[in-house]
């Protein structure tokens, strides 16, 4: 691009800046006021209509637990985005595949009693199975749908990913049936454990532990190992990475494998937490996790974790806190509205996310 053109563009942007600033400031004030008002009204409700302290605590714990699951899924988006600059819209289905794949074993083991006799081993095996299924789907997805599109204009792989998402959903529907199924839970995981004096759902404890271990392992792999370094290098410049002797195709496959593994883990944790699965279960958590990735700063691993936790908590606390006071009936119906509004607001105010760069904005 010529010097002149750049200057013109820069001028144009400077001119636009003030109005944009004003609108954004007004908007942020408005959002802030609405949040403050809603929370104030909720917290000052008469004693009978108010949520108790322990209810808030439960919301918070649930939020953290589901946030951990979102974080695991979000990492899949972030890793793939980092390396291919594409929104892998079908990642939600990778997650669903893991949950579904492990379901049949969980179901059989519930029947045979294995799930209750050796709960720890059983859950571990379920996680491994789910990982294997998710990884298979993710790798096939890359090989069949995305690899032929390297270097295509940006929207092409996105549309492909949407098609793949639809295809995968309906494939699972065709293969395993359309009905929602109850995902069995080992009996030991019913009820609560007391942690630091706080009663916490046992499933949520498991979720937090597993997710935490997975996150730490991933961080170590990416930061310390040669594979991790190759992944980061390929994310920044594929051509030069291959010049260093890095096998970029393999790195990309590895990325999908890692994303698939995390999605598989998330699938089991999600199924254990919410107790049922269906071919359509990938959509909402997928979008939510994507939002988390964007919120945290897409391409950033820490960002995905932070974003996941924030979204998880906001989803579980937000509707109750903001909407109960202004007498919105069934506020939890609107939890996805919270997610999407956050997505839009983040992109408006800080497109790079909390820990990211200005990746989302063009120019």
């Amino acid at each position, binding site marked *: 691009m010529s010097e002149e053109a750049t200057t013109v563009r820069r001028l144009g942007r400077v001119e636009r800046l003030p109005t944009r600033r004003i609108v954004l400031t007004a908007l942020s004030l408005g959002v802030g006021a609405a949040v403050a008002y809603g929370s104030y009204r909720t917290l000052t409700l008469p004693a009978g209509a108010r949520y108790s302290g322990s209810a808030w605590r439960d919301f918070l714990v649930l939020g953290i637990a589901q946030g951990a699951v979102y974080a695991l899924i979000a990492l899949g988006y972030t890793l793939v985005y980092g390396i291919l600059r594409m929104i892998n819209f079908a990642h939600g289905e990778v997650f669903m595949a893991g949950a579904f794949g492990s379901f049949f074993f969980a179901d059989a083991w519930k029947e045979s009693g294995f799930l209750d006799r050796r709960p720890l081993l059983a859950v571990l095996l379920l996680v491994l199975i789910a990982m294997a299924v998710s990884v298979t789907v993710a790798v096939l997805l890359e090989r069949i749908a995305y690899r032929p599109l390297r270097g295509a204009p940006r929207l092409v792989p996105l549309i492909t990913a949407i098609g793949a998402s639809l295809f995968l959903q309906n494939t699972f529907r065709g293969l395993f049936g359309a009905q929602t199924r109850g995902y069995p839970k080992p009996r030991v995981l019913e009820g609560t454990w007391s942690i630091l004096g706080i009663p916490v759902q046992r499933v949520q404890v498991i979720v937090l532990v597993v997710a935490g271990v997975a996150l730490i392992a991933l961080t170590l792999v990416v930061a310390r190992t040669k594979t991790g370094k190759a992944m980061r290098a390929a994310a920044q410049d594929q051509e030069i990475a291959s010049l*260093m*002797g890095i096998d970029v195709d393999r790195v990309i496959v590895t990325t999908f494998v890692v994303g698939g593994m995390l999605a598989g883990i998330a699938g089991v944790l999600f199924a254990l937490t919410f107790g049922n699965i269906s071919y359509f279960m990938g959509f909402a958590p997928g979008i939510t996790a994507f939002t988390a990735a964007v919120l945290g700063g897409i391409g950033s691993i820490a960002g995905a974790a932070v974003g996941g936790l924030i979204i998880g908590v906001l989803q579980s606390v937000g509707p109750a806190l903001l909407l109960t006071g202004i007498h919105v009936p069934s506020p939890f119906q609107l939890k996805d509205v919270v997610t999407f509004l956050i997505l839009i607001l983040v992109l408006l105010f800080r497109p790079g996310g909390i820990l990211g760069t200005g990746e989302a904005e063009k120019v």
Partner: protein
Amino acid sequence: MEDRRPVLELRGVFTHYGLVSVLRDVNVEIYPGEMVCLLGGNASGKTTTLKTILGYVTPSQGEVLLDGEVVSGLPTREIVRRGVSMVPENRRLFPDMTVLENLELGAYLRTDRRKVAEDLERVLELFPRVRERLKQKAGTLSGGEQQMVAMGRALMADPKVLLMDEPSMGLAPVLVEQVFEIIRTIRGLGRTVFVVEQNANMALSIADRGYVLQTGQIVLADTAENLLNNPLMREAYLGEL
């Protein structure tokens, strides 16, 4: 010349992008310790020549030989493993990684840790400025510094042949001088260098021999001195200016 075998050789190489022909019957020989330059205008196929050597594209005819062994058809990483590295056009560092990480990636395929450490030391001796910035993100370096890191990264592979694609591109005249000074130093280390340039004067002033590429064909091949005195070349510069 009989007793010496070229370390890198292109033998009758034709390269196509799909059905578009880019290189036609390119023959190049580079002997150990030599510094050779490849000159040519825009879109004449210089970068494609380097890509062909590195296996990014496979020649449709002819072959590339490294130390007498055919390497065309092998994947890039295999060719890199066998001792070719490149300083790419526009430097192309990994901007979000530290300078040290960039240098280490240059030795990605090497397993001899001790020698890698020695080479790192040697590179840092060559570029003292770089040593001060090892922990800095590569993207925050100045253009000249980036060029040094890019060269250092390529040297970290301990290559038999070092390829450079337009090292002077996008740099201020002072820096261009500096870059060629560095190339001269690298050459002084006994490295074999194959440099692609549009800045023919500069390139020929430090090279032993040169090739001139025009729409995918080698039209001139001679010693640097002869090329500098070639009337045709002079005319070409006048045209370039």
